[in-house]
């Protein structure tokens, strides 16, 4: 499945360590299976509810041991095109073990939620703007009127020159 490989690549790409790929493919089968399940169930789902699962895949360090290979810390992968949207993950290594992978960004093809920085984001409302001829007290816009003013003044003064 495309989705399973994608998760692997997001984490590995940011780690930049080629020899690890073979070892990690085996270790990450577990993560990939969990992640793939989340995506798969979302794609299949006909309902518009947000995923129940947390954006964090807390990992059992006994299963995913990368000891001595990676330095402790948090590493953010590149934002990557997962075909149906963008995905970005952050991996945490603690005591030499990969302990967590969090979705910083997670697409939603059918659902009403997305994840940005680990927080659920509602899809924001959109509308086509109207061109209203309405009277308001004050107008807020960019400052183009000042440029027009100066250009107009400049052309007037040019004509005013002797």
């Amino acid at each position: 499945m495309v989705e399973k490989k994608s998760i692997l690549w997001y984490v590995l790409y940011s780690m930049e360590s080629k020899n690890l790929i073979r070892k990690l493919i085996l270790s990450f089968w577990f993560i990939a299976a969990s992640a793939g399940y989340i995506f798969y169930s979302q794609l299949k789902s006909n309902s518009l509810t947000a995923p129940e699962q947390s954006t964090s895949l807390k990992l059992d360090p006994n299963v995913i041991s990368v000891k001595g290979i990676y330095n402790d810390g948090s590493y953010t992968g590149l934002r990557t095109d997962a075909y149906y949207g963008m995905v970005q993950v952050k991996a945490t290594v603690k005591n030499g073990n990969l302990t967590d992978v969090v979705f910083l960004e997670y697409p939603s093809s059918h659902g009403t939620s997305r994840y940005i920085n680990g927080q659920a984001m509602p899809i924001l409302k959109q509308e086509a703007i109207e061109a209203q001829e309405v009277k308001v007290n004050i107008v807020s816009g960019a400052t183009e009127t000042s440029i027009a003013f100066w250009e107009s003044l400049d052309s007037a003064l040019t004509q005013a020159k002797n």
Partner: protein
Amino acid sequence: MRDTRLIMGMPVTVNIAETEAKSEDLEKVFSYFIEVDNRFSTYKDSSEISQINRQEITENNYSNEMKEIFSLAEKTKQQTNGYFDIKMPDGSLDPSGIVKGWAIQKAAELIKQLGYKNFYVDAGGDIQSEGRNNEGQPWSVGIRHPFDLKKIAKVIYPQGAGVATSGNYLRGDHIYNPNNYGQQINEVVSLTVIGPNILEADRFATAAFAMGKNGVEFIENLSGFESYSIDNKGIATMTSGFKNYTKHA
């Protein structure tokens, strides 16, 4: 009593909607804006910021106002992951993206100190309003239509909140993508931010605009702020609380 002057390269309007409004009080407000322009304008060789950019003044000799602006600029830069930055690609400093909102805020405070409760200050489309208009109604603000400049795209009633709009209508030398200096910011043509006051709205509007399509989501994640972002196809995206400002109490 209302008047408009051209200061800091933009129309500045002060409207005190009280019958006892005195013209000398209006003058005090305009004088304040002139003072701000003389200190912060990068177009004036004699301004403090120009002297700083020519290394003619050392840090311990910066005015209190300059220190305050630099401190606000640094805070905003951190809060926006660098999308707001007063340092230009050539290394010079241009704080105009934050001075405007800051100056309007100070002007509004000055008007309140003079004893007025119903007024607005509008500098180049960034607005701080308080109280009610001459008809006793909440001040109404129209977001200018980005393509038909004589029309209004949306009407809002800020009711004391600050309103700042960033757009790509040129001037815009202080708006660029810090991660890609050459990139023209043109996906979003107009981004309006409503915040607790005009200083807050203004400092985030500039950065959010530079984030393009992600700007409105950045504001969605910011508690106490709302946004209306119009793209180059005339589609507006709004934050989830924005609709609270489209009807008046």
